[in-house]
């Protein structure tokens, strides 16, 4: 029987949806495999169509994007009820992703910057988005922007996760194949990715690491063959799951961790602290501090995609 699936985005950029489209001619196979009942970027189904479905009607929902506002949460809960399997698609749904960096700030700080202070904003009357407002006598509603960005599994029960920013297209395709063939692994598994660290699949040469200083990418040209970390560039490979096909590494760019942590690691960024500290050379406090001075913006580098899923989740008030 043909699968019934829904594809939705919360606080996302649409990159995950494009990754589905990037399966190219395999998209036709996906269309053979499954009927799609919701996909805002590509099809015209509305929320009312989803509300009209029986609970558990959909075999699977691919949910990309984090939970940033009340609409994201409501639709996530609605889709959870309608879906037999809820699948977090991509780094934002799994970890909060780049938009999760907003957890460094409060809701008010974000709103003020965006609507009042930003250089490109003209807002003389200081109008701010309101959850309900009256415009010329007409009642209008907007979702509530949340103070804390949440991952999908902080809001609803998630059955499977396909990591990546964006997930590799073929991995999405093979994950859909698992659903169609009823070959899904145990609940909670990460599908469509490896189970070892990125370093394991990275083709660069690795030797003994003794880092004496960190270079920013404009300070030195990396060589073509050696491990980035060994050359002094921060690379999140040791703390990141494999499966992306080393896309960034192959483009001479160190990893920033979009495939998320390995199994049993609850905090990718802090794991990276541990990994980086163990390959640094200095032993004296003074020398260590001098080296650490060359690590710019550690929190947002180590938690580039995972701040909302880190143990502490946000900056404390």
């Amino acid at each position, binding site marked *: 029987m043909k699968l019934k699936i829904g594809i939705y*985005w919360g*606080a*996302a*950029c*649409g*990159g*995950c*949806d*494009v990754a589905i489209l990037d399966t190219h001619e395999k998209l036709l196979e996906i269309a053979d495999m499954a009927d799609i009942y919701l996909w*805002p*970027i*590509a*099809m*015209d*189904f*509305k*929320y*009312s169509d989803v509300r009209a479905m029986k609970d558990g009607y959909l075999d699977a929902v691919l949910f990309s994007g984090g939970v*940033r*506002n009340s*609409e994201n949460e409501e639709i996530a809960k609605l889709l959870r009820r309608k879906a037999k399997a809820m699948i977090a698609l991509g780094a934002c749904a799994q970890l909060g*992703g*780049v*938009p999760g*960096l*907003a957890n*460094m*700030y409060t809701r008010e*700080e*974000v*709103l003020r*910057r*965006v609507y009042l202070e*930003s250089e490109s904003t003209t807002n003389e009357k200081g109008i701010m*988005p309101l959850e309900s407002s009256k*415009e*010329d006598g*007409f009642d*209008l509603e*907007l*979702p509530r*922007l949340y103070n804390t960005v949440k991952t999908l599994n902080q809001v609803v029960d998630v059955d499977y996760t396909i990591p990546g*920013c*964006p997930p590799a297209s073929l991995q999405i395709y093979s994950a859909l194949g698992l659903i169609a063939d009823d070959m899904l692994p145990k609940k909670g598994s990460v599908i469509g990715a490896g189970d070892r660290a990125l370093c394991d699949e990275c083709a660069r040469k690795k030797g003994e690491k003794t880092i004496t200083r960190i270079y*920013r*990418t*404009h300070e030195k040209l990396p060589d073509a063959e050696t491990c980035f970390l060994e050359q002094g560039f921060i690379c999140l490979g040791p703390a990141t799951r494999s499966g992306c096909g080393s896309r960034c590494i192959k483009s001479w*760019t160190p990893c*920033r961790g979009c495939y998320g942590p390995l199994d049993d690691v609850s905090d990718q960024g802090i794991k990276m602290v541990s990994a980086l500290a163990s390959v640094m050379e200095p032993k004296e406090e003074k020398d260590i501090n001098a080296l650490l001075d060359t690590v*710019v*913006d550690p929190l*947002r*580098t180590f938690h*580039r995609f995972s701040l909302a899923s880190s143990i502490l989740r946000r900056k404390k008030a």
Partner: protein
Amino acid sequence: MKRIAIDPISRLEGHGKITIFLNEEGAVENAYLQIPELRGFEKFVEGLPVEEIPRVVTRICGV
């Protein structure tokens, strides 16, 4: 007054909803397009190392 909601608007990148208000005769009295989504890139790119910015702002829109 009748109210028609097109929620979400589809086949484009981004979130949006359209609310149309109809008067007693069924003619359009007013219509609003609202963008319910905000992520706050304007805030959290502040102070980021400049060489990291291209890898962050590409996540504004992935289409």
